[in-house]
Each structure stands twice: as C-alpha cells, then as structure tokens.
C-alpha cells in the first residue's frame, strides 16, 4: 500500500489488511520529503519501531542535487531505532536489488521466516550499519 503521508484515512480501516512493515521514503533532492516523513512518524504506533520500520533514501546517485543533510537522516534512524537503506531508483539493478531486500524484510516482519523475528533482524541490521 502506497501513501504520500500519514495518518491513513480512517474510512477504509475495516477494509485494510494488517500492516507488517512501514518503509519511509526520503528523496535526498527534496527537503519537503524529509519534513513529510518527520511529520508522519508521529502517527505510527510505537510497536512498529521494534524492527518493522525502515527508512529508504532515494536520489543518492546525484550528489550535486543534494538538498538534505545526511546527518539529519542518520539521526532520524538512530532516534527511531530503524535501519536506513539507500537506493537509486533510476538504476534498474539497484532498484531490483532493493525491492528484493525489502521483500525479504517484509517476510520476516510478517513472521513467515521461522526462527527470525522482526526485532532480532532489526538489531542485526543496525549493528552492521554501524560497522
């Protein structure tokens, strides 16, 4: 399910399936997208931040178009205990690889991978990012 901001409209609550994972997309070329994500985060239930949220930063290929300070994004990841992934949407290879990665994460968050919980996976991801 794709949306431009949170909260989701309440009218369709009863028709909506369970949400297993939330990916917040930040376009490094648009300050507005960071502001939007920051505002939307406050509508997310705290339980999601136990491994069911991640930040996806796009537009990183073009350093010269950068309007967002990377430190602000790292701080966001730290503050919400969620991993930060990078993707260049225009490159098919990267796009496909990122989609596969997200799909794998979703499987874990939905509980379809026996022996791996969303929380343990999230911790694993954060530790490897720090290295």
């Amino acid at each position: 399910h794709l949306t431009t901001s949170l909260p989701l409209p309440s009218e369709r609550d009863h028709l909506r399936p369970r949400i297993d994972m939330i990916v917040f997309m930040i376009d490094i070329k648009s300050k507005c997208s960071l502001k939007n994500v920051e505002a939307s985060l406050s509508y997310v239930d705290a339980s999601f931040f136990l491994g069911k949220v991640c930040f996806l930063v796009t537009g990183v290929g073009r350093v010269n178009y950068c309007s967002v300070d990377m430190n602000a994004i790292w701080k966001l990841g730290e503050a919400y205990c969620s991993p930060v992934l990078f993707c260049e949407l225009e490159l098919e290879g990267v796009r496909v690889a990122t989609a596969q990665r997200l799909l794998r994460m979703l499987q874990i968050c939905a509980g379809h991978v026996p022996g791996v919980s969303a929380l343990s996976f999230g911790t694993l991801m954060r530790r490897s990012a720090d290295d």
Partner: protein
Amino acid sequence: LPPQHNADPQKTAFLLRKQWTLYSVTPLYGFSNADLKHYARLLSAFTAAEKQKGLAVEVGVELDIKVTVSNVPDLKGSDRDQDAILVQLSLRSSASQKNSEDKLVWLGCFCCVFGDHLSENLPEDFTCLPLFLANGAEGYTSIVGSWFQKTFDCCFRRLAISPLNLSWMAAMWTGCQVDKTTSAMELVFSAPCLPYPLDISYAIHPEDAKALWDTVQKTPGEITQEEVDIFMDCLYSHFHRHFKIHLSATRLMKVSTAIASAHCDGIIKFLQSKYLAGVLMLLTELAISQIQ
C-alpha cells in the same frame, strides 16, 4: 566570513564583477613558480597550434595570441597556501597599429585559500591549487586546461554546488555587514513540472533577510547546519503562506546576495572585495571535497 587582511585589494580587484566558471583541480606535479615565463611560452605555442587545427585558412587574418602567466601573492589565505597563478590570454593587435593595446580575451586563475587539509599531506613535488576560475570563451578554457593537464598530470573537473551548499552560502552571506543599501537577496529554484521545469525566483529585501538571520544565529562567527535549516525553512514557509508552493520540494539553483552570487553549475560572481577571501575559502573547501 573573515574580511580580507594584509592583502592589497587592488591586486585582487580583477576578480570582482566578472562571471567565473569554477573547476576543481588535482595537485600539479612538477610545477615551479620560477618557471612562469617558460610556461607562458610553451602555452602560447600550444595555443597557436590548437587554434591552427581545424581552422579554415583565412587570408589576411592572423590570430596572434599572447599568453601571460604570473603569480598573485595577494591571493591566498594563510602563508601555507601557494601563491595564486594567473593566466591571461590576449589578442595581439595587428602589426600596423603599434599603439593600440592588446585585447584581453580570457582569464584563468588557480588559487588556494586556506587549503591546509589538502596540502599538508602532499609530497614535495606537488603544488596544491585546487580551485580554478575561468572567465572567457569555453574554447580557450579547454585549450589551457588540456595543456595544464598534459604538462602537470592534473585533472580538471567542473565544480558543482549542491542545493545544500547553496543554502549555506545564502545564510552566510546574508549575515555579512554591507555598508550601503544593497540589492535584494534572490533565490532561484527549479520546480520539476511537466512538460517543462518551472523556474521560481524569490526576491527578499536584504534588511529583512539580515533581520531574520540575526534572530536565528546564536553565536556570531559560527554557523550550524541547524541554523541554516531554520533560516531556509522560515523563508520557505513565508513563501508558502503567500503562494501555496512548497519550495522545499524544489531544487535551489542559484543564490544572489550583495556579497556574491553562485549558481549550482559552478558559476560565481564576486561583488564585494571585503569578503572575497571568505568566499574563496568556501569555494576552495568545495573544490577539495570534490577532489577527495
């Protein structure tokens, strides 16, 4: 911004009020300040040869280009910086008019203003002049660039200025003291629209901009990313209140203030000699990060 000190502003006045295209240059190998006249002769021969290539022979037209290479000791940050090097190309007047002056057609300047973090770890044979400014026809820039690249094994790259860096410049330059009433601060944005991108120009009265910056900046002489963000956000929300357009979703392309104007494609214009060193210091830093 540190105002320029100990330097003769007359010597650096040639930088003012001209449009300069910026490049980052990797350290020059085997360059010597003592051989400048020799370099001028070599470059002159090279330029003449390049100009001959592909030129249809025109009867009676002689393209005689005079090359001067000089150093500008007043153009540097600290004593640890190398002297700036100025390259000038002039069209020699034809032999019959002995009294007329040569016409200056192209200027190029290599400089380094407070470039310690690049120069401190370099071996002896390298000269650190990471910032190159060019004024004049692109054809000449290309010829001079090629000669330097071949002779000193260095690499020129257009210096791009990101929207993030442009907002720093907007905040920094707004805070500078300017004596007389000055031109408005102008920000130009590119908004992605179909079928053609839209250019939005936002002009702000310089006193209003300075008043805003003064409320944001906590420590004089120090600027943080947070302060720059707050400053820009205030400008964006003001614009949104009036026009219902989110400038934060667009790309900042150009910043013009009374101090200087900068374009994201790496084009700069210096307007105040008092802050020349400060702006050059910032550009040197950008050039160094592009090299590394």
